[in-house]
């Protein structure tokens, strides 16, 4: 009894220290992230990404928020909710007007995962194929398959959303203990999912947010061989990105990654 009471006190203290140490998304930052002003959301997204592991539990809670916060000031943003296309701008392949999807977008970016949130807004004729390819456990069940054939387009989109959320929740249930972004980066590079590989390579090449422990020495010891192997695969999106990382002998990609914008 004494032992369990002590354990409970330690856990409470540990949680308090995490909060006191800023190891949680501050309320104002979270409220910026769910706001309707695109530049504010984008900045908040980067700040939350810099929190790495600490931001994930609150993002997981946001997966249950299906409210719509239609983005404003999006003239330079190309996304499913855009009302006009100007031919240029930042591409975000997620329907981020919906808070749950916005959270899924950030979770996939922090963790280099592919939960399936990008499939929700696909054209009507691609939805079943997306479910078949991305959620084989669901699709391979004959009852589910029959049900899918009877679904309307809106129901299929809702299904992809709920399967993506379930996948994200399942992932966090399994991985939350001791998860860190650096291991996640390596795991994505080594995965058999080309979307995760591309996410990881894209981050190495262009990402500006923090990945604690990612240093030149770490890269050379633990990642260089993996990137070299990826530079030889057939899929150009993977191999070309890997080659560019290898060509960057000055490690400019690493100097871009800092929490301090100055």
């Amino acid at each position, binding site marked *: 009894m004494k032992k369990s009471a002590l354990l409970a006190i330690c856990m409470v203290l540990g949680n308090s220290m995490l909060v006191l140490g800023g190891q949680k998304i501050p309320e104002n930052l979270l409220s910026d992230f769910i706001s309707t002003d695109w530049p504010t959301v984008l900045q908040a997204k980067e700040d939350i990404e810099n929190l790495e592991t600490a931001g994930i539990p609150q993002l997981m809670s946001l997966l249950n928020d299906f409210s719509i916060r239609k983005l404003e000031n999006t003239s330079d943003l190309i996304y499913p909710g855009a009302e006009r296309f100007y031919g*240029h*701008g*930042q591409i975000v392949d997620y329907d981020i007007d919906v808070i749950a999807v916005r959270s899924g977008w950030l979770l996939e970016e922090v963790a280099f995962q592919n939960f399936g949130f990008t499939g929700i807004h696909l054209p009507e004729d691609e939805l079943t194929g997306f479910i*078949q*390819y991305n959620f084989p456990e669901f699709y391979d069940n004959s009852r589910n398959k029959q049900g899918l054939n009877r679904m309307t387009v809106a129901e299929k989109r809702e299904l992809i959303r709920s399967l993506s959320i379930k996948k994200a929740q399942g992932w966090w249930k399994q991985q939350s203990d001791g998860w860190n972004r650096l291991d996640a980066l390596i795991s994505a590079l080594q995965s058999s999912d080309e979307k995760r590989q591309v996410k990881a390579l894209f981050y190495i090449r*262009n990402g500006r947010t923090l990945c604690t422990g990612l240093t030149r020495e770490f890269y050379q010891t633990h990642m260089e061989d993996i990137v070299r192997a990826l530079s030889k695969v057939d899929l*150009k999106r993977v191999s070309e990105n890997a080659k560019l990382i290898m060509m960057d002998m000055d490690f400019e990609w690493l100097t871009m990654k800092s929490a301090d914008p100055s």
Partner: protein
Amino acid sequence: MRRTILVVAFLSALIGFNSVFAQKEIFIKQIEFKLERVSEVDYENEYFMTIKLNKGSNYKFKITNHRDNYAGKAVMELMDADNLILTNQLNDKYFEAVNFICNKTAFYDILIRYKDKKPGNSVIDIVILQ
């Protein structure tokens, strides 16, 4: 006779003037992309390459479709990280040539896909205009 001479002189001057100011095209690269059948793996349906473009240069991308009677029309996207900076498809408008004045020397990604997920066979010529 005098009138004819005047017309010839005027036309010669006009041709000379045009040749002085016409833009010269310097060929850089030709991209060939053939998609025989559409795959369920998204990335297998696209062409992806990186290219270094130089600040101050004026580039032109010329798209030729329907080689060997393939139906697909290539949609090209020029990307700087996740920013789309040039495309030949704007809403319903499709362009077979697009120009780009580069204002930052960097490696850019070129992505080519076929409209409406059709198989296709296309070439894209990249030239510098001078």
